[in-house]
């Protein structure tokens, strides 16, 4: 079982991921330079947060042309796991592995805060260590985190139960007051049809170490690790 963390110029949460996977969970983790093409040794590819290529043009728009990207698409096609966090989620929508787009926050400002998020289902590898409908608290930090999709796409996502995380109140209500960035249907994270590609705006890797705040994000990495090492 091995994690790989993609490093684009401008990635800045790459080491935060490896701090959790390797530093806390002792799982083998390899940093993958964006020009590499052989990632066949990896089980889970993580596209970290940050500002790949300075967010030039559009967040994630240039990263899709990186040499490593074709290998990631291939990796996903094989049913292996791809996790995109924050800028990584933006990259996944740009490259077409996930539908929709992430646009400027409703309030037009960058937001760094802690958000309460409802886990919609726990029958996927990403959330098997959570309860369904459990409300967790995860840090958010983004300027373009407002999820948008056209009507048909949104219907397909909702009908396929592909929303894994939604911004909610601490008691689980989904409403506008508890939607930090204006995301449609309060969407914070979605999966592809097969469920092996997840993109989310909140940062689970920032909530995995009791010394620096909450630990609600650790279960995601633990879940992956257990599932893939025992499989």
């Amino acid at each position, binding site marked *: 079982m091995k994690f790989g963390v993609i490093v684009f*110029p*401008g990635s*800045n*949460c790459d*080491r*935060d991921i*490896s*701090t*959790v996977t390797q*530093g*806390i969970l002792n799982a083998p983790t390899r940093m993958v330079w964006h020009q590499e093409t052989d990632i066949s040794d990896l089980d889970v590819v993580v596209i970290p*947060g*940050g*500002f790949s*290529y*300075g*967010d*030039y043009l559009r967040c994630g728009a240039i990263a899709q042309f990186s040499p490593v990207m074709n290998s990631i698409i291939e990796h996903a096609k094989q049913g292996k796991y791809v996790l995109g966090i924050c800028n990584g989620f933006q990259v996944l929508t740009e490259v077409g592995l996930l539908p929709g787009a992430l646009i400027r926050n409703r309030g037009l*400002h*960058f*937001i*760094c*805060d802690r958000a309460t998020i409802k886990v919609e289902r726990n029958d996927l590898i990403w959330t098997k260590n959570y309860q369904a409908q459990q409300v967790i608290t995860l*840090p958010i*930090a983004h*300027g373009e985190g407002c999820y948008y999709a056209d009507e048909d796409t949104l219907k397909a996502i909702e009908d396929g139960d592909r929303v894994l995380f939604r911004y909610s109140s601490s008691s689980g209500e989904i409403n506008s007051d508890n939607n930090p960035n204006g995301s449609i249907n309060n969407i914070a994270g979605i999966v592809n049809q097969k469920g092996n590609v997840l993109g989310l705006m909140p*940062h689970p*890797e*920032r909530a995995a*170490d009791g*010394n*620096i*705040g909450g630990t609600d994000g650790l279960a995601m990495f633990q879940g992956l690790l257990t599932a893939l090492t025992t499989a």
Partner: protein
Amino acid sequence: MSEIGSTPFSAEEIAAEGIKPEEYQEIVNRLGRHPNKAELGMFGVMWSEHCCYKNSRPLLSQFPTTGDRVLVGPGENAGVVDLGNGLRLAFKIESHNHPSAVEPFQGAATGVGGILRDIFTMGARPIAILNSLRFGNLEDARTRRIFQGVVEGISHYGNCIGVPTVGGEIYFDRAYTGNPLVNAMALGLMETDEIVKSGASGIGNPVLYVGSTTGRDGMGGASFASSELTDNSMDDRPAVQVGDPFLEKSLVEACLEAFKTGAVIAAQDMGAAGLTCSTSEMADKGGVGIELDLDKIPAREAGMTPYEYLLSESQERMLFVADKGREQELIDIFHRWGLHAVVAGSVIEEPVVRILFEGNIAAEVTATALADDTPIYKRELLKEPPAYAKEAAKWTPDSLPGCDYQGIDVKGTYKTWKEILLQLLDTPTIASKKWVYSQYDHQVQNNTILLPGGADAAVIRVRPIDAKPEDCNTGVAATTDCNPRYVYLDPYEGAKAAVAEAARNLSCVGAEPIAVTDNLNFGSPEKPVGYWQLANACLGVADGCREMSTPVTGGNVSLYNETVDSQGNPQPIYPTPVIGMVGLVPDISKICGQSWTKEGDVIYLLGNAIATLGASEYLAAIHDTVAGKPPQVDFELEKSVQAVCRHGIREGWIKSAHDLAEGGLSVALAESCIGNNLGATVNIPVADSQRLDELLFGEVAGQIVVSVSTEMVDTWEAYLESNLNNSWLKIGTVDKSQSELNILTNDNLSLINVKIEELVTTWSQAIETRLIL
């Protein structure tokens, strides 16, 4: 003039470079000839206050700069202190005031970029940013534009580069209306075995230019930063640089990788005065010369003249001296990160900066003449305080209306103490800064222990880049402080108070204060009052730092912070010597925030100094009066109160600690309630004839409000008895969630009774409501 012949420049051309007529003569003396245009420009920027400290150098020399932990003191790109266990911390503060006044977004963004370069040039990875900001009143539309632009600029640069912005301070006052202050402080953890210095060495070694391209942006920024702002300053917008944090993020990684090869002999970032400053300082510090060929420099645009190359302040550029023969190794690293890297010159024996352009010598100046043998002005110090200070010192509380247990008459309207407390919490200087810090990524790097807004200082875990969290217990605390009204009314006492407050804020989170970086923001030193403020404040900083055993390891001087209006009237800012201080947290599990944590905990007031209304926020905000003597620091009391607080936190007795600052005891108590929505009931003894507003809102140095678990009370009080004599009081208890803050006299007469909800609403909405005018 002299036998050298008449000057090739008009008086206007010389003045346009920021050079005074007598300085021009000095240049001619040093060169033995007249300078050419490029050389004149080089002298203009290098002899600016920003680069050579010609007005402040004699005053800075009195700062204590050595100590057990100091590894690198003033003179390098940043100071470095030893945190123990092989951990070394680089830190520094720098201003970007003038650029932020005319172009807030880029001015603030490049201020952050500049200070980060100072850090990683030393071989340290940046781990935190703090900002000390001053603006006019938010009721003013232009101030709102500047304020929002500055916050956005800091957010843009810091977030993108991936360094958490974890703390700082913001004041709003009319004094900063046209001339905001933007001081950025950065901390970095050394990653290289050797600290990378800036002195060039090794004759024949190649000089590498790395990073971004050179363009015409930021021309003459250092000179621009060293003169007053006028109505015409907007025309100087080209003097403001444009930053690219993405490029700098790549530059951080590439530089640290390059330093680790051991092939870099010396490094200097290009900030103020770009190529001119980096070549002359590297040459001067190494006692050698540098020859640089401008034709090799990657240019952003065609047709640039030597003058433009030399004075460009394009961002994200560095100059290296490399080990001869290993330059390609370094160039490859930079190319891998998509950055420019070229050999642009070499180290030469003759101690000059020689600039080549199109095959000819475009400029040749002795390095020391630019970087070391620069003008120094020792000015006459006023024998006694200027009229404004004398007049203000005469103020006494007797000029205020009398007050009773309920409140006081304010300009003809009776106001209750509760109303006054709420009004103070609604003052943007005191109110929540969440609107600001929620735009800063304060958690990236996974080391932020205390989030902004929750404690008197920021605390970061010190973790080498690939170290496991479980192996890292050391933390560093950091703060920036200066109450400029205190300094305005009494520069010496005010500056001492700034040092004491910075140390106190660190002690309130449990950190041991260790060292200082200072940012001196003042008006023109050429005016007697301006120089009096500067000289006395420097003395205060020096004495304060000596008392607190916190040596100064470097900093920045920003003078000429004045706006000249259309009528030609200069308006100087309040003298603002910002103290950036770092402290050591030996065990990150033994720290605390400023908010009560549990119902039933017992509240104590440490320190028994007498609070004063002089220079207070209460006097300014409620009675519209800026007068009186600011609180004086009693360093003996200050040191023992801080030591007791730190000890109590490390023993786990103290659950929250918050010092008394603007707004005095009432505001401190309210703020401790707000964080976790917990109420409190507090009884305070009233001395005979003591004014109640002095008791409630008077300001003081050396006092801290702490809360202690009930089961620890006996141990704690025994400790207080033996370590703080009678300088402490048990004043109350923490009440339940969503209740009230009750402040009563010892005879149980109610002074303030207010719902926590009301405190929170007022305090948290103050800034945002002013922005939606």
